[in-house]
């Protein structure tokens, strides 16, 4: 069996912030109404995670659960665990109306790290970075493609679609080029 590879083979770039492509990372999309009675329990038992509030992302060990829309959650977890967790979540939700799908390979994940990491996304995303709260999941666009990001220890994590991973790396590195800080010093 061949090893799964991420879109860019963990490419990285050192600018005024560090850009790293991560992965492969497990991702599950879970569509269900968030007031579905079975949902909190399914998250608890399968992922030991809580249901996130609107526009938040919560951590439980290596697992992240992000609020994507009133009926969609994004779950991040180790790649190897995805298949089992998809089955377990599906079973835990039982007959309730829900959709659980493995999207690990449909996405790419980037780390933007360093004290000036936010300045990289200030150039690409129409988001007030100063107002970004810890644990806030922001769905937006990065230049011309859809993206979502949140703060993690040491910087930011950004999710985009796999087919445009090279484009996302391109815009991140362009924006992080040394000397082009928005706020030098």
């Amino acid at each position, binding site marked *: 069996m061949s090893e799964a590879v991420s879109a860019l083979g963990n490419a990285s770039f050192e600018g005024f912030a560090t850009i790293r492509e991560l992965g492969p990372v497990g991702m599950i999309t879970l569509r269900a109404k968030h007031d579905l009675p079975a949902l909190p329990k399914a998250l608890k038992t399968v992922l030991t995670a809580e249901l996130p509030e609107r526009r938040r992302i919560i951590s439980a060990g290596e697992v992240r659960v992000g609020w994507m829309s009133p009926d969609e959650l994004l779950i991040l977890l180790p790649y190897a665990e995805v298949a089992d967790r998809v089955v377990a979540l599906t079973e835990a939700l039982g007959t309730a109306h829900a959709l659980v799908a493995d999207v690990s390979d*449909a*996405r790419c994940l980037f780390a933007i790290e360093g004290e000036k990491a936010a300045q990289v996304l*200030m150039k690409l995303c129409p988001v007030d970075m100063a107002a970004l709260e810890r644990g806030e999941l922001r769905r937006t666009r990065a230049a011309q493609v859809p993206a979502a990001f949140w703060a993690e220890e040491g910087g930011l994590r950004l999710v985009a679609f796999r087919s445009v991973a090279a484009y996302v790396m391109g815009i991140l590195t362009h924006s992080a080029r040394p*000397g082009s800080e928005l706020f030098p010093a």
Partner: protein
Amino acid sequence: MSTRLARGGRLIDRNHPLDFTFNGKRMRGFAGDTLAAALLANDQMLVGRSFKYHRPRGIVAAGAEEPNALVQLGTGGRSEPNQRTTTTELFAGLSAASQNHWPSLEFDVGAVNAAASRFLPAGFYYKTFLQPRLAWKHLFEPVIRRSAGLGRPPEEPDADRYEQAYAFCDLLVVGGGIAGLQAALSASASGQMVMLLEQTPHWGGRAPVDDVLIEGRPAADWVAATVASLEAAPNVTLRTRCMAAGVHDHGYVLAEERVADHTPGDGRPKKRLWRIRAGKVVTATGAIERPLPFAGNDIPGVMLASAVRDYLVNWAVSPGDRVVIVTNNDDAYRTAIAVHRAGLTVPAVLDARAEADGALPEEVRSLGIPVLTNRAVAKIKGGKRVTGVAVCAQAGEGAVLDEFACDAVAMSGGWSPVVHLWSHCGGKLIWDEAQSAFRPDPARPPITHDGSAMVAAAGSANGELLSADVLADAIRAVGGEGPAPRAQSPEEAPTEPVWIMPQGATPALRSKMWLDYQNDVKVSDVQLAAREGYESVEHTKRYTTLGMATDQGKLSNINGLAVLAGSLNAPIPAVGTTTFRPPYTPVTFGALVGEARGEIFQPLRRTPMHDWHEAHGAYWEPVGLWRRPYCYSRPGESHGDAVAREVTNARTKLGLLDASTLGKILVKGPDAGRFLDMIYTNVMSSLPVGRCRYGLMCNENGFLMDDGVVVRLSEDSWLCHTTSGGADRIHAHMEDWLQCEWWDWQVYTANLTEQFAQVAIVGPNARKLLEKLGGMDVSKEALPFMHWADGTIAGVPARVFRISFSGELSYEVAVPAGQGLAFWQACLEAGTEFGVLPYGTEALHVMRAEKGFIMIGDETDGTVIPQDLNLGWAISKKKADFIGKRGMERTFLASPDRWKLVGLETLDGSVLPDGAIAPAPGSNANGQRNTQGRVTSTYWSPTLKKGIAMGLVHRGPERMGEVIEFPKIWGGVVQARIVDPVFYDKAGEKQDV
């Protein structure tokens, strides 16, 4: 001569000389110079030629309002036309060239236009359209095109890079003069997030030049202290070299920052476009001095009085030893004082007013400078440079009373508040009689979503010209508290409106009074327009081109409309202004484009096998934002030959296609079957688990919009394949119906397109390859045609669909994208013994056309219903409804009298031209040839060794065997027989083995 003074210059660093060139001539300036200051320091007053008459043009202003001193800056990849020397910072190695002259700046043949100016009156451009008709094309157009124009567009790709940035603030203050600084300071005290922009590299605006005292000390000290405290405030962002270009709805402001304009090649972006969302905007953009319209006011050496002061004080540049001042206000006397203080001579101050006895005129008199009231300029003497001034009475017609020899003339016609940003979103203006200027009307500001004022003007931009008033107004503008800093500046007597000098000037003089320097619009032109019936200022602007040059009339608009008002005998506010539109000064395309160049011009979607394709000779075809291999050419092989080879190989041995781009949408839920029965024209709810079915999707009008294979995954879930270009659109279409119309149906969708790499394994050896890779039973019995199965192949989790778009034995295998490349390579390796070759989209097209399969976008164009394509079998007769059902039942769509799909076979075996239209006898009501059909797909078939085509032909299926003609591109016709569109294996035996 203009020259550098031995002392002074608050902005220059004499320890840092910088060498640069102008028209190839080596010159030297200092760090801190603008290019204009450095040119003047090198006695380069003549910097260009005017647009229409090619008149010599000198530097007039010292800031963003400069109309004349535009140059071609840089060379090669850094060549930029129309760069304003007054805002261009000098750097070492700068090279500039003057524009719009031929053969040279000093000797320009275009100046004969000036001699012929009576043939180029206002509206000459439009008049050339009138008659004789051929004159425009053969005479006027070539001549005008050659003689008119500014800089040259760059010929090489831009060597620099650009970027954009988003910013958010409660209050955006535009302008870093004392008004802007005070506004930011007051607002910051309230804890608001404040952003302060200044277009120049320096804070403080005019105050340090104009001897303003704040709290008893020079304004520069207060500026430095205020900037320091703003820099220390955590809630304030300061940016210099950042020009707010436009105010848009909802507090959206675009600003252009010159990041590395003055440090080319240092790796930083040349410019940065700030996209700012501001709660409120304060415009502290100052005011612009107006020229005076007198004869010869365009001769190099005639400058704005404030600009003369700026050059003296900021850059220690003298415009000439003897400077005559001509004014209608007290402020210009500051220039007389500055000239005197620099040790130069003021032969006279000519004041158009009857009296001038304010503090400033008195101070000038006390310096021994003659102040002549009720005087005007009759004309300027000189050609390429001012040599003197002929003086007359302002009240008269221009009879010369006296003459002064001089090297420069400093003129001041009063000040106009910069109301551009206030006006962009609908802020209204009022006419201020005392200052003869339009100023913002506080009762009618631009308003935002909640009806409150979005913009407030502060300081000189609000019509307050005295520094004490400016500071108080800045505090008021932000709703601040506390007293304003105590500012001292002399009282000034009112400005007297002077729109023509002298007021009774003869026609000869009026035809030498320039309003718009860059576009060569004179007082006589505006008066002519008025005589010809132009009453609206907007029409007059376009007719005369007043204010339509790159400076957008910063100096000319008010004078021009005042002259128009005078000609129409209307009050100035009744004539009004033209519309102020963004940008305030030109914004380079690079900044608007931002990072989107080269590799990141557009998101390029890549399949997991993209790099492999590229390394193996793929010739790319764009499909949506994807790139798909059109074919894989071998060295020396034409694309056509490669396609033929790939088709033949797939038909006889084994072909591999990267089908990863196909849309894959998961649809799940208790109502999913019902939903898909509405989305598709045929029935999907009845599809058994484990089976595949080809389906069609129509829009509400009944037109075919997408197709693909639908797969029943489980009792409540289906996987819908869409076309490569259609995945996102169809997913959005589904969500649209689910969210807006059928919100109570229990259905979820997920676009899984990129989760899977999909490989089509095609050809007689397809099964052998999968059997060799191992892991699944893919026999005919275990996996019949139009079935699917999950399993593992070559150790990779796989879903195998037995579907065929080629007519051959075919499997499409979906694997996780992260293992797509490995699986592709495994197929190639294992397939060697079976003769495997990858094939591209063109081979795919040829094979599907041989089979008579339609292609969305080829056989459909948004006007074609499934029945036109003989796909009536895929339209359910049993379903009560589906999207498009009612649409396609409309009489003209249900009529048999339509163009329908047929095969076309040329009698000579040649390939029909793509898109060719078959004529029919007679002509229509418009006298056009009637038509009876068109070619939708046409290829050379390597399998059948002849041209094959599909087309839509009027009642085509009823006309089998009939021969119709299609025109060829280079003349002649080709005859084609109407045949069945399935050219290859009509029984479908090959795919079902």
